[in-house]
């Protein structure tokens, strides 16, 4: 076997691409033919005594009822089997012993099941969800009883993250850049890279942070769409686990606040619904929080918020690609060293290519051939596999993280200041663009049906 063939079959980067492609391919066949159900396990919302009304009440299912259902256990088996087999083969090809990997994977998977169960509880599901609880569960174990040695072969954060990102690539549809015409492009795409550059400058020059992967991960989370963007940029820049933990924790906590306070402030200032919605879409990190905060201002605001956020969602791929290229050509090189095309290729994280190919196939092959509804249905299936990969990754991060390491990473609160200053800049710049495009002073105000 040549060295080249050996690399594409035996390195974690390439294996993540192949595993991601297999999941996407099976998902596509399942949905397009309707021959079988490939959807992974997802806990329905359950409560611990909260009084629910409206849609939330209609969709909550008591935990006991969920666990008593045969379909639930079948889905659990399917999810464990699909991910277990694929990751075991992957681990074997990277040189891991199957006899060590299988019990370890079962352990990490069961911890992930606990995480998904906990994060499906009504209040926890609404505000925090899996990323936060996966870190907490992992860290509780590693910082109390310690991570058992037998579990360590399956603590493979990067492998799971890269695979999840390739699967996620299929949901990044290029056609969405035109969803809100020049208005959306202006608010989402003109502002986002400027905020990233500002935070890069502020973090490296003003705060003098020498941890560049942390700076770019934080900048992407702030300007693009929180957790998902942090995962993509963090993997592209090869950031440390603690950096990702910190970025995501800060982003999640601030999103809870922004979801509640931003609509109130917008209303207090008397901004029009379309302007308020676009401002929310451009500045609140998570997509769910954007839709909820937008809905507080009315239907038109919710539509504008979602349209802007949709465009930001597709930016994840571009940002991750250029972050990987930037780090391969500039950050990781020695001073004065010229980096040739071969060296760039060697350093470039290959899973980004898988991510991009998945996105291109979805946008320019499957979408025109099968239609938007089918692509949405496929993504409905793939999203849960993406989430399971990310939950496995975040449990692994938690199992590998020491509280003291995180405290050390805080370095005088610099990451927090980077987020706060960056987010403030993001809000000011987005507001300026929203006013320029949607106030009616310069351009006609668009109509949303």
């Amino acid at each position, binding site marked *: 076997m040549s060295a080249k063939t050996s690399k594409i079959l035996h390195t974690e980067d390439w294996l993540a691409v192949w595993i991601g492609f297999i999941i996407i391919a099976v998902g596509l066949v399942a949905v397009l033919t309707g021959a079988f159900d490939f959807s992974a396990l997802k806990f329905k*919302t359950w409560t611990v005594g909260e009084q629910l009304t409206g*849609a939330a*009440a209609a969709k909550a299912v008591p935990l006991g009822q969920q666990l008593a259902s045969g379909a639930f256990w079948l889905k659990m088996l399917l999810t464990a089997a699909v991910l277990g087999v694929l990751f075991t083969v992957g681990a074997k090809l990277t040189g891991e012993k199957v006899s060590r990997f299988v019990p370890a994977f079962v352990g990490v998977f069961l911890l992930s099941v606990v995480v998904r169960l906990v994060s499906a509880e009504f*209040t926890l599901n*609404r*505000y*925090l*969800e899996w990323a936060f609880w996966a870190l907490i569960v992992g860290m509780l174990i590693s910082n109390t009883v310690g991570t058992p040695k037998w579990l360590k072969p399956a603590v493979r954060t990067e492998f799971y993250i890269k695979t999840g990102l390739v699967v*996620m690539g299929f*949901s990044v549809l*290029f056609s969405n*850049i*035109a*969803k809100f*015409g*020049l208005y*959306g*492009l202006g608010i989402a*795409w*003109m502002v986002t*890279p*400027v905020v*990233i*550059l500002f935070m*890069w*400058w502020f973090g490296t020059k003003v705060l003098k942070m020498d941890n560049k992967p942390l700076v770019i991960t934080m900048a992407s989370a702030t300007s693009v*769409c929180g957790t998902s963007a942090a995962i993509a940029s963090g993997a592209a820049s090869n950031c440390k686990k603690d950096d990702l933990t910190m970025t995501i924790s800060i982003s999640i*906590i601030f999103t*809870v606040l922004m*979801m*509640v306070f931003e609509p109130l402030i917008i209303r207090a200032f008397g901004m029009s619904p379309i302007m308020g919605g676009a401002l929310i879409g451009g500045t609140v990190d*998570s*997509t*769910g*929080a954007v*839709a*909820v*905060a937008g809905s*507080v201002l009315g239907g038109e605001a919710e*539509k504008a918020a*979602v*349209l802007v*956020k*949709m465009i930001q969602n597709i930016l994840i791929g571009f940002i991750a690609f*250029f972050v990987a290229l*930037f780090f391969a050509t*500039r950050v990781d090189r020695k001073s004065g060293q010229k980096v040739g095309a071969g060296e760039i290729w060697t350093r470039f994280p290959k899973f980004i290519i898988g991510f991009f190919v998945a996105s291109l196939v979805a946008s320019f092959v499957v979408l025109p051939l099968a239609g938007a*509804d089918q692509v*949405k249905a496929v993504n409905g299936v*793939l*999203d849960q596999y*993406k989430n399971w990969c990310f939950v496995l990754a975040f449990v692994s991060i938690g199992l590998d993280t020491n509280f003291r390491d995180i405290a050390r990473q*805080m370095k*005088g*609160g*610099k990451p927090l*200041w980077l987020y706060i200053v960056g987010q403030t800049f993001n809000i000011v710049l987005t507001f300026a663009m929203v006013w320029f495009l949607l106030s009616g002073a310069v351009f006609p105000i668009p*109509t*949303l*049906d």
Partner: protein
Amino acid sequence: MRHPKRSLTAGSIAALIVGAVVLGAAVYIMVNGLGLNPDLDFGAGAYYYADIPDYQQTLDWDSYTARLPFVVYLLLFLAWGFLMWCIWKRLDRKQ
């Protein structure tokens, strides 16, 4: 190996205070269920658009009809991205 003794700077004390206030406010919001819409079956925990339950029906993302051909948006998108890439490289060189 002994670690050098670290002193608390004004920045780190301010960060501690801000962090505690933010965390306290987030806990208060969660305990009291603030900011949620009872008609929407999700919240800030849906990080990505596909995480939103039944997002195919829930998200109204075809509410605007773009007037220009797709290629115009694509070219503007790429041109702005290229400009930002050049600025980023320049910004990094100056440091």
